[in-house]
C-alpha cells in the first residue's frame, strides 16, 4: 500500500475499541484452523491473519523488526523448495529503489530470514527514483550490468528482456508464487515478454477517475450525473464556467488537464483521454501500428483527444489561470485537493491524500470510479469511427516487478538462489501485507480484494471498498489500455510533451498539426533506435 493510502485508511477510523475489535477478530481467525481442524488452506489463512496483525492497523508505521517478522512467517514456500543452508556461500547483488525509505529497505527486512535459512548473502544497490533510469540505461549501454536481481518497472522490459538480459522464470517459481491469482491485466501477454515469463509482479498500477460529489447530483452545478464519457466531462467543464465552487466559494472548474510536461509522465494524462477513443476492443495496439511502428498518435482518435483539451483551453474560464504551467503534480496536489476543479485522473495516491493531507479540503466530497469512456471509438483497421460506447482504463506504468538477470543463468545454484529470493518477495501472502501496509506498492492480486480480510484487520470498510473497487474494476477491465513495453518508451512520451506544450501554447494551428509534429518526432526516435527491432519488440510485448 502506498504510504499515504495507509494513513488515509487508518486516520480517524481507528478508535481503541475498534482496534481491539480488529485484534480480537484476528485472534479468532488465527485460532480457527486449529480449533476446526482445517487443512493447508486454513493454515495459509492463519498466516494471512497473523501477518495482517504485524504491527496492527493503527499501531504506527511498521519497522525493520516487523518486516523481518513478516519475512519469517511467509517463509514456508521457500522451505518447501529449498533445503536449509542450501545456498551457503552464494552472494547475490540486488538493485532497487530506496523511495520513501521503503522498497529495498523493506526487501532487506523480508529477506533477512530468507538469508538466515538458505545461507545466501545479498549485497544491495539502492537508487533514488531520479537516478534509476540513467543508471539502468548506462549499465545496459556500456555492458556493465552488475546485479543479479533487479526491481524494475514493466515499461523497462523492452530495454532488458528485449536485449536478452533477463533470465526466464523456472516453472517451480510460477507455482510457488501462485501466478493465477494475478489480476487480469498482469497475466499474459502483459505479464510475459515474447511468450516467456520474466517478471514476478509485486505491484499494480492504473489511473482512476476522481471527482467531487458536491458538483454532481440533482440541482448541482456540474449536472445531475457524474460524467461517464469524455464528451460529458468536457460538457460539464464548460457548464461550470462562471459558477461558484460549492465548497470553497471560489470560481468553479471542471476537469483538470495537466498542460505542462512532467519528464514524460505527463503524457499518461493525454493517454487517459485518448484511450477511450483510440483503444478498440478488437485491437491490442493503440499507440503504434505493430506491423510498421507507424505512430497512431496523429490518427482521428488521438487528434480528438488533443482537440478536447484545446477546446477547453479556448473556453475562457474553463481552466484555472495558470493551467498552461500546471503539471500532473500541480493538478492533483495544488489544485484538486486544495478545492480547485472537480474532476481528475490520477494514480491511487490522490484519494488517500484527500483524507490525510493537511492542505486537502475535499476529503468528505471525493468519489472514485474508472476512467471515463467515450460515445464513439476509432477503429484503426477500418479507418472509421464506430458510434458505440467504449471505455478503456489506462494501466499507466503497469507496476513494479522483480526480475533475475542472465548473469546467473550459467550457474544453476546461483540461479535457483536468485529466483528463490525473488519468489519470496513476490509470494501470495507477503503481497497481502505489502498491499495493506505502507510499502510503496498497490494491490495486484485478486486475493487482495477480499474486503472481509481488510475489515477483520481493522480497516474502514467503506474507504477500502471505494479505493480498491475503482482499482479492481480497472485492473480486470477487458479493454484496458496497456502501454508498449518497448525500449525508450519514455523518450516518445518526453518528446510528445514538448510538442504538446507548443500546441497548447498556440504555436501550431490545430490539433492535427500538433499530432503530426508528435508523430514526426516519434518516427525519428523509432528510426534512431532501429525500426525493425522496435517492431519485433512491440509485437513481443503485445504477445503477437
Amino acid at each position, binding site marked *: 500500500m502506498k504510504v499515504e493510502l495507509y494513513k488515509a485508511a487508518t486516520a480517524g477510523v481507528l478508535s481503541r475499541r475498534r482496534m481491539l475489535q480488529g485484534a480480537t477478530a484476528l485472534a479468532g481467525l488465527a485460532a480457527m484452523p486449529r480449533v476446526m481442524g482445517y487443512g493447508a488452506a486454513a493454515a495459509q489463512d492463519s498466516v494471512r491473519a497473523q501477518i495482517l496483525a504485524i504491527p496492527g492497523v493503527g499501531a504506527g508505521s511498521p519497522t525493520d523488526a516487523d518486516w523481518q517478522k513478516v519475512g519469517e512467517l511467509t517463509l514456508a514456500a521457500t522451505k518447501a523448495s529449498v533445503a536449509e543452508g542450501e545456498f551457503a556461500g552464494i552472494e547475490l547483488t540486488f538493485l532497487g529503489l530506496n523511495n520513501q525509505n521503503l522498497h529495498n529497505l523493506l526487501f532487506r527486512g523480508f529477506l533477512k530470514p530468507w538469508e538466515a535459512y538458505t545461507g545466501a548473502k545479498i549485497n544491495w544497490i539502492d537508487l533514488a527514483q531520479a537516478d534509476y*533510469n*540513467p543508471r539502468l*540505461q*548506462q549499465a*545496459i*549501454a556500456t555492458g556493465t550490468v552488475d546485479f543479479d536481481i533487479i526491481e524494475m518497472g514493466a515499461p523497462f522490459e*523492452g*530495454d532488458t528482456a*528485449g*536485449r536478452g538480459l533477463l533470465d526466464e522464470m523456472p516453472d517451480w517459481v510460477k507455482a510457488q508464487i501462485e501466478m493465477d491469482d494475478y489480476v487480469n491485466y498482469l497475466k499474459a501477454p502483459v505479464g510475459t515478454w515474447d511468450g516467456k515469463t520474466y517478471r514476478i509482479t509485486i505491484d499494480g498500477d492504473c489511473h482512476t477517475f476522481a471527482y467531487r460529489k458536491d458538483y454532481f447530483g440533482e440541482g448541482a452545478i456540474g449536472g445531475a450525473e457524474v460524467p461517464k464519457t469524455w464528451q460529458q466531462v468536457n460538457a460539464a467543464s464548460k457548464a461550470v464556467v462562471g459558477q461558484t465552487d460549492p465548497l470553497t466559494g*471560489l470560481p468553479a472548474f471542471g476537469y483538470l488537464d495537466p498542460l*505542462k*510536461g*512532467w*519528464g*514524460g509522465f505527463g503524457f499518461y494524462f493525454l493517454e487517459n483521454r485518448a484511450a477511450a477513443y483510440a483503444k478498440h476492443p478488437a485491437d491490442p495496439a493503440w499507440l503504434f501500428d505493430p506491423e510498421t511502428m507507424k505512430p497512431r498518435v496523429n490518427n482521428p482518435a488521438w487528434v480528438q483527444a488533443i482537440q478536447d483539451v484545446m477546446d477547453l483551453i479556448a473556453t475562457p474560464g474553463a481552466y*484555472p*489561470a*495558470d*493551467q*498552461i*504551467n500546471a*503539471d500532473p503534480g500541480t493538478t492533483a496536489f*495544488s489544485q484538486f485537493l*486544495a478545492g*480547485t476543479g472537480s474532476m481528475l485522473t490520477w494514480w491511487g495516491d490522490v484519494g488517500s491524500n484527500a483524507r490525510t493531507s493537511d492542505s486537502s479540503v475535499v476529503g468528505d466530497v471525493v468519489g472514485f470510479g474508472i476512467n471515463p469512456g467515450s460515445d464513439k471509438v476509432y477503429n484503426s483497421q477500418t479507418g472509421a469511427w464506430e458510434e458505440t460506447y467504449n471505455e478503456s482504463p489506462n494501466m499507466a506504468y503497469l507496476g513494479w516487478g522483480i526480475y533475475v538477470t542472465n548473469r546467473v543463468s550459467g550457474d544453476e545454484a546461483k540461479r535457483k538462489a536468485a529466483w528463490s529470493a525473488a519468489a519470496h518477495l513476490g509470494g501470495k501472502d507477503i503481497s497481502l501485507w505489502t498491499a495493506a501496509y505502507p510499502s510503496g506498492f498497490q494491490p495486484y492480486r485478486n486475493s487482495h480484494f477480499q474486503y472481509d480480510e481488510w475489515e477483520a484487520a481493522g480497516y474502514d470498510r467503506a474507504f477500502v471498498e471505494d479505493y480498491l473497487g475503482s482499482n479492481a474494476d480497472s485492473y480486470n477491465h477487458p479493454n484496458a489500455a496497456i502501454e508498449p513495453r518497448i*525500449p*525508450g518508451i*519514455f*523518450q516518445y512520451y*518526453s*518528446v510528445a*510533451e*514538448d510538442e504538446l*506544450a*507548443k500546441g*497548447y*501554447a*498556440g*504555436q501550431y494551428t490545430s490539433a492535427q498539426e500538433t499530432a503530426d509534429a508528435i508523430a514526426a518526432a516519434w518516427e525519428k*526516435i523509432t528510426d*534512431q*533506435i*532501429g525500426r525493425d*527491432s522496435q517492431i519485433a519488440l512491440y509485437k513481443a510485448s503485445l504477445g503477437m
Partner: protein
Amino acid sequence: MSSSGDLLHVVTNDNIPAGRKAFGRAIIWGSAAVMAAVAVAQTLQVSGQAAFGFETWRPTLYAYVAWAICLCWGQVLINGEHGKRTLFVLPAALFVISLTVFPLLFGLIIAFSDWNLSSPTGRKFNGLDNLRQMWADPFYWNALLNMVWYVLAIIVEYAIAFGLALALNAEIRARKFFRVAFLLPLMLSPVAVSWMIGKSMLEPRFGPLARLARALGWDDPSFFGSPWIAKLTIMLMDAWTFIPFMMIMILAGLQAIPKELNEAAKVDGANGWRNFWEVTFPLMLPVSITAILIRIIFKLKLADIVIAVTSGGPGGATDTVTSFIFREYRDRSNVGYGTLLAMVYLVVIIIVMTLLMKLADRFTRPRT
C-alpha cells in the same frame, strides 16, 4: 661542483653516466610502446577483429599510468637535477591533461555519433548528421534566442546592482545588516528559490504575490501563463538570486576607490552626478566588466529554475539551451545529439566571451 654553465639556477651539476640516460630513455619509450600495443590490442578487441580477453579499457588505462610514471622517472634518470625540477610540474600537467583533454576528445567522439542509449546497436559514428539535425531543430534555436533575451536582462541587473552597491557604500544606518541581508538570496539554492517563489509565492490562487497582484487590480494573476510574462518572471527570479553577486563585486570595487579622488572632484566643483559619472563610474569600469562577464557565464548556464518551474514552457518561451539539453540527454537518452548540442554551445560561449573580452578591453582602455 662545476664552475661553468648555469650557475645561477643549478645547485648541483650532475655527471650522469650514459648508461643511466639510456636506461631512462628505454623505460620511457618502452612503456610508450607497451601502451601503444595495449591500446591497439584493445581497439582490435572492441572492433571484434581479435580477442585478447580485455573486457574493459582498464588495461589501456593501467598502461597509460605506467607510461606516465616512467615518463616522470625517466626525467630524473636522464636530466638529473633538471629532471627533478620537471617533476614539480609534469605530474600535475599529466593529471590535468587526463582529466580535461581526454574527456574532451571522448566527448567529441560521442558528439559525432548516433547514440541513443535505448538503441540495441549502440554507438555509431554518423559524421555531421547531428550538426545537420541541430541546424533544423526549432527547439534548439528557440532556446538560443531565449538566451539572448536572458543575457540582455543583465544590463538591468547591473544597473540595480550598482545602485544597491552605491547605497551600501554610503554612510547609512545598519549598513552591515543590509550587506548581509542583500546577500541572502545568493546563498539560497536555485532549486529552493524555484519552489519557494516559483511554486509557492507565485501560486496563482493562494500565493501571497498572487493575492497582492489581485489586490492591486490584476483580476486573474498568472505569472507563467503567457510567453512574455513567463520569461519575465524567470528573469526576475534569476535576477533576485544573482544581483547580490554583482552587487558584492561592485561594492568591493567601490571600497577600493581612494576617497581623495571624490573629495578632489568635489573641491573642483563637481556635483554628485558629475562626480559619479566622471570619477566613480570610469574607475569602476574594470570591475564592472568583470562582474558582467562572470554574470554572463552564469546566465548562459541558467537551467535549474526553468526545469523546476516551467519545464521550458509555455510552448518553449522560457526554455534555455541547458534545460533543452537536459531533456534531450536525460529524458530522451539521446547521448550523441545531446553531447553535440553541449559542445556547440561551449564553442559559442567561448567565441562570444572572447569577443566580449576584446571589446571590453578596448572599451575600458581610454578611460583608465
